[in-house]
């Protein structure tokens, strides 16, 4: 099945097989579709064996960072400490809506993956942190967890193996930053969702200061398939010359595209064929002007760059962007890039947790400047100021929200500079920034100069 469209013949459906099929939501329905066989198998394996098969499969984190899942799991040792698994279901990267579909159509698939992951890291308790807005996914998951407890799949004697496995659903309350793993842990502990300084890394001191693993919804949902079918089966999906990216991945496609929705393809799929053949290209017979291929935090690509790119971790980097979360935002030739990038910056300014000044001030300044350019009040120096602020926002903060705001600004200015320049007002009465932009004075002084004109 597919949702909201019927699957395209070139899709490879593993995780999305039952999207749009309400019958898959119940425990019985999930069992009829082969559910919980992987968990049963895994519970009879030593956790190290589960870690190894996932390591061998090449599965990498699907939330955006792409860290090898089996390696992450292998950081967790049987040290007698209380371990936790936290499932990151705070899907909030603009352009990404794949985890919502996994949770609302196949909640048991996630519960099974979470239980399997908890077993693999010697944890007896797992929390699924779902973003507050996702009321339907929360309801489906709570129902699934209840059914799994009642059927003794979870509990003090999980599936009759004597293993203790508890899974709880925890609802957030509206904060993009809680998708950052250490902010998620703070939020789960009942704190403000401020990211934590690393180290210590979660595997050493995470949730409630205990060793913790955090995995994305899609990652944990893929793991049972690997346990069931083996690492070799999973490795068949991918480009033959790129063993670093294996398996299938869900891509959420939105914006000005003919057929928006979730698509599951083997990693390494040609991005050009994906955009124009599978998704139908731009909507309303327009032309594609720009694509953000991995959620709003990654560099923007031009249509030419898309045509030759491959949809895996390495392929997207080679094309000048990142695979990210797989949220593909398409913009057609009617879109004004200044307007859209200003809107994106406003998102980050709204969502900054305000802990680091580079981010708190940088996202706000960036938004102010972009919006005044948008409104025809920008001056030539503004473009240099934007780049200078972006530089101050990159690699200098506790988490990467700040970098995420700078990225589309820098790539937008690089690739669509003419659109910014076309909006600048010709003003002779401007304080010269020539010296400042060569490194004279602090960033604040340069900004003050630009505001003082």
């Amino acid at each position, binding site marked *: 099945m597919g949702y*909201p469209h019927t699957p395209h013949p070139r899709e490879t459906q593993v995780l999305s097989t039952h999207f749009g099929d309400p019958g898959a939501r119940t425990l019985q329905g999930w069992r009829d579709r082969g559910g919980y066989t992987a968990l049963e198998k895994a519970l009879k394996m030593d956790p190290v064996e589960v870690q190894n098969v996932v390591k061998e499969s090449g599965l990498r984190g699907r939330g955006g960072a792409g860290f090898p899942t089996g390696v992450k799991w292998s950081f967790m040792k049987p040290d007698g400490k*209380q371990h936790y698994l936290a499932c990151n279901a705070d*899907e*909030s*990267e*603009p*352009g*990404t*809506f794949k*985890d*919502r579909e996994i949770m*609302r159509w196949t909640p048991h698939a996630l519960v099974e993956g979470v239980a399997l992951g908890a077993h693999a890291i010697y944890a007896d308790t797992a929390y699924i942190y779902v*973003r*507050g*807005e*996702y*009321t*339907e996914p*929360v*309801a489906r998951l709570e129902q699934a967890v209840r059914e799994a407890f009642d059927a003794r799949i979870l509990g003090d004697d999980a599936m009759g193996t004597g293993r203790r496995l*508890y899974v*709880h659903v*925890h*609802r*957030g*309350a*509206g*904060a*993009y930053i809680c998708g950052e793993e250490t902010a998620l842990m703070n*939020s789960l*502990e*009942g*704190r*403000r*969702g401020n990211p934590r300084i690393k180290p210590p890394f979660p595997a050493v001191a995470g949730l*409630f200061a205990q060793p913790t693993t955090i995995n994305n919804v899609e990652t944990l949902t893929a793991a049972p398939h690997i346990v069931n079918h083996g690492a070799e089966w999973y490795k068949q999906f991918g480009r033959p010359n790129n063993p670093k990216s294996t398996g299938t991945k869900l891509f*959420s*496609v*939105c*914006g*000005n595209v003919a057929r*928006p*929705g*979730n698509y599951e393809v083997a990693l390494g799929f040609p991005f050009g064929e994906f955009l124009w053949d599978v998704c139908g290209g731009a909507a309303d017979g327009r032309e594609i002007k720009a694509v*953000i291929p991995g959620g*709003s935090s990654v560099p923007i690509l031009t249509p030419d760059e898309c045509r030759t790119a491959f949809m895996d971790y390495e392929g997207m980097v080679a094309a000048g962007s990142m695979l990210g979360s797989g*949220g593909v*935002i398409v*913009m*057609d030739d009617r879109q004004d890039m200044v*307007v*859209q990038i200003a*809107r*994106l910056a*406003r*998102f980050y300014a*709204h*969502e900054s*947790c305000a802990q680091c000044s580079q981010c708190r001030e940088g996202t*706000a300044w960036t938004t102010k400047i972009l919006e005044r350019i948008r409104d025809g009040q920008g001056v030539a120096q503004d473009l240099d100021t934007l780049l200078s602020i972006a530089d101050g926002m990159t690699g200098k903060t506790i988490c990467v929200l700040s970098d995420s705001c700078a990225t589309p600004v820098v790539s937008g200015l690089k690739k669509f500079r003419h659109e910014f320049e076309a909006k600048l007002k010709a003003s002779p009465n401007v304080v010269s920034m020539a010296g400042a932009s060569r490194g004279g004075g602090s960033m604040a002084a340069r900004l003050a100069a630009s505001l003082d004109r």
Partner: protein
Amino acid sequence: MSWGPSTPTMAPAAAAAGHAHDAPHEPVFAPGSPGRAELDVLLGRYPTKMAALLPALWIVQRARGWVSNHAMVEVAEALDLTPAYVKGVVTFYTMYHQHPVGRHFIQVCTTTPCHVAGAENVVNSFLTHTGCRELGRTSPDGRYTVIEVECLGACGFATPVQVNDRYFENVTPETVPAVLARLDAPDAAGVAPEDSVRV
């Protein structure tokens, strides 16, 4: 710094009714109450009482429609926290209402993917058809509050609109009246309040 009314301001109706925070607070976690029972179950899930804070605030908001200062004091007492700490957490998150809001709390997604698909027009249509006229204000009849919200995570179904617990997907300026009519209509059998609706 204000980033515009993406969180509801003090609604005129509430302001006119006096100081909402001065109104007496009926306890949500009184001994023997359903709220207390629900909280006790939650406390069993976490190694610390503090971890039950977000869920406890949800229980309050579900029961009272918003989270008042008095309610924060009650939550603080129930979880051995200080009221100031609780307020610090409440104000970090966007979904806890710190003032009363309309019966139908309408959040229209306007982040980039929806913005490119024309979400601004959907916002304007809601403002017109609800009589709210301005973002963050409650309509004179107390039925509606309309705000813009940052990415609802349903970008492929632009424009998604969340009204209380329900997502309406693929909303256009033209279908806004139908969405509003649906809000007061009873759900069909088997349809839960949180089930998404495609328009």
